[in-house]
């Protein structure tokens, strides 16, 4: 085994934090505690954990709207829940919500507009290169967003200027209601990398160790100024957002969902850990219990934090950093 026991246990914890966290979001949405829409990555955790576990603390993450697994593992749980519950003690005073960002934790904001993350990430990576920093930017992107022009422009420029960035395309086969077969004529999104002069690979996104090993290599190369594209193939179990009944999926699609659920990345990883005697069922149970407790504690704490007041919301100094006179209103 390429990875130490400690690293493997850490990946188990990260996967389970992702899953238990999103299951808790489902409960909170059902009870009406969370405004807005929640785009769940249940079943896709191996992609993001493979990436996050390969990143150094000094590397930057550019998430998407479906990046809870990556984001929850980079942020502190209490402050993240404050943010999702729209509380003032959140990372962004409750103004960021699913677009949460943290300079300290090196999480950049997920734009509300698809594909925009790619050029933002390229800009950030370019600045890091100018400052001769050793950090890399990992830019997440879905199969749907990969059709955006911004992604094309970003990839071309990243390759041209040899920027420290990895484009990780999480292909979950669905862009809201549009299946992958109706999004593009290429069978593998990684093929596009060749068009920009970058290396591109397509891997099994449901195997966390495959993703980890691929990202280890891609990040190391990016650090040397060789950006690349990694397409990790997975499957979106749920609707586009929690509450979407996904009526656009026909009987064949439903079979695909069932197959994907049988091929659960966490179940697979658990079986491997047990078989290789890395963890016992009791170890796992203890980890899971601990995560659930931490999540529940974080929610209790977050609920104690106040909602932003009208004054904190309608604050032009929060919109503009400098006001040298004149009307901004």
């Amino acid at each position, binding site marked *: 085994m390429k990875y130490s026991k400690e690293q493997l246990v850490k990946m188990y914890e990260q996967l389970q934090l992702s899953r238990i966290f999103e299951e808790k979001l489902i409960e909170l949405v059902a009870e009406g505690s969370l405004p807005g829409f929640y785009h769940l990555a249940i079943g896709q955790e191996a992609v993001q954990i493979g990436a996050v576990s390969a990143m150094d603390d000094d590397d930057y993450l550019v998430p998407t709207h479906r990046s809870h697994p990556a984001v929850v593992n980079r942020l502190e749980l209490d402050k993240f829940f404050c943010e999702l519950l729209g509380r003032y003690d959140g990372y962004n005073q409750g*103004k960021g919500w699913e677009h949460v960002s943290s300079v300290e934790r090196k999480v950049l904001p997920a734009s509300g507009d698809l594909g925009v993350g790619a050029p*933002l990430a390229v800009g950030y990576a370019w600045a890091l290169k100018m400052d001769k920093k050793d950090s890399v930017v990992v830019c997440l992107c879905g199969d749907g967003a990969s059709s955006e022009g911004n992604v094309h422009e970003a990839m071309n420029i990243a390759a*041209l200027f040899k920027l420290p960035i990895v484009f990780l395309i999480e292909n979950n086969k669905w862009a809201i209601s549009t299946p992958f077969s109706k999004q593009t004529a290429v069978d593998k999104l990684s093929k596009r990398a060749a068009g920009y002069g970058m290396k591109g690979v397509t891997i099994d996104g449901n195997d966390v160790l495959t993703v980890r090993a691929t990202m280890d290599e891609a990040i190391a190369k990016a650090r040397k100024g060789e950006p690349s594209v990694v397409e990790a193939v997975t499957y979106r179990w749920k609707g586009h957002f929690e509450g979407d009944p996904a009526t656009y999926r026909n009987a064949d699609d439903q079979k695909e969902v069932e197959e994907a659920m049988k091929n659960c990345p966490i179940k697979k990883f658990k079986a491997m850990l047990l078989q290789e005697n890395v963890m016992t069922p009791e170890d796992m149970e203890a980890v899971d219990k601990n995560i659930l407790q931490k999540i529940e504690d974080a929610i209790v704490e977050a609920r104690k934090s106040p909602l932003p007041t009208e004054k904190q919301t309608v604050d032009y100094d929060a919109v503009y950093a*400098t006001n040298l*006179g004149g009307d901004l209103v």
Partner: protein
Amino acid sequence: MRQISYAQALNEAMAEEMRKDKNVFLMGEDVGVMGGWLGHTIGLYEEFGAERVIDTPIAESGLANIANGMAMAGKRPILEIQFGDFLGLAFDAVGNQGPKFRYMSGGELKVPAVFRSLQGGGFGAAAQHSQCVEAWFMNLPGLKIAVPTTPYDVKGLLKAAVRDDDPVLFLEHKALLGVKGEVPEEEYIVPLGKAKVVKEGKDVTIIALQNLVYHSIEAAKELEEEGISVEIIDPRTLIPLDSQTIFSSVKKTGKVVIAHEAPKRGGVGGEISAFITENCFESLKAPIKRVAALNIPIPFGIPEKYCLPNKDHIVKAVKELV
């Protein structure tokens, strides 16, 4: 005082800010080796090199978002979008991304990017190379907009924009690049949000943008001969807008003409007019007049003059008020 052109003043502002702060740099299409498509960035590549005067591929949307990302990382990029018209391709990045991140991050992020672009007619370059586009961006919280008219202002405002911690859309008028004016050798800035009283007068207030300021000055001379005294105000920035300078003039004259080169419908003249009406209604002695382009795609060549506003339109509007 020495006289230099608008283009030279623009060039000096960039050079001085780049010398002062290593985080400032210029990027865009043809800004480097070529020295800008109208020669306005000549010399910068030679002085600062390819890493700080960056020739880029043609990708307005991607580049403007790249500038946003660089700015969030602590840089102060100046991105040139060659023609104002091309800002449509970068609209989301300039208007919908950069300006939102400070608020959405609870103040943790800032985006000190400057999006420079050359706008306006005068070259007969047809409907997609001639427009004034400031109104496209007026409805977006978090953005600032500068519309410099003179060499002095383009230099001082650009230096202020580069130092500003918010994203600034900096719209130069390309017909003004060759216009000369007094620009001191010494360091100065023109703060964003301070209008200029170009000429004092007592009968009618003309609020004019860019090229229309020059047309207004010509109109004023003609009107003076007939005994009509106009006051000309150049807002210089639209966000922030120096309402106090505008209001005090309106309170003095009670009559207003607003002149800009963009089409009248949906133009900033409507916004300024509403702002005056909301705040100075008692002072108004007549309805506010707008002088602006027709709602026609700007035609190629000489016929553009049939669609764009000029001195005669301003004279006529003023006479209708007095």
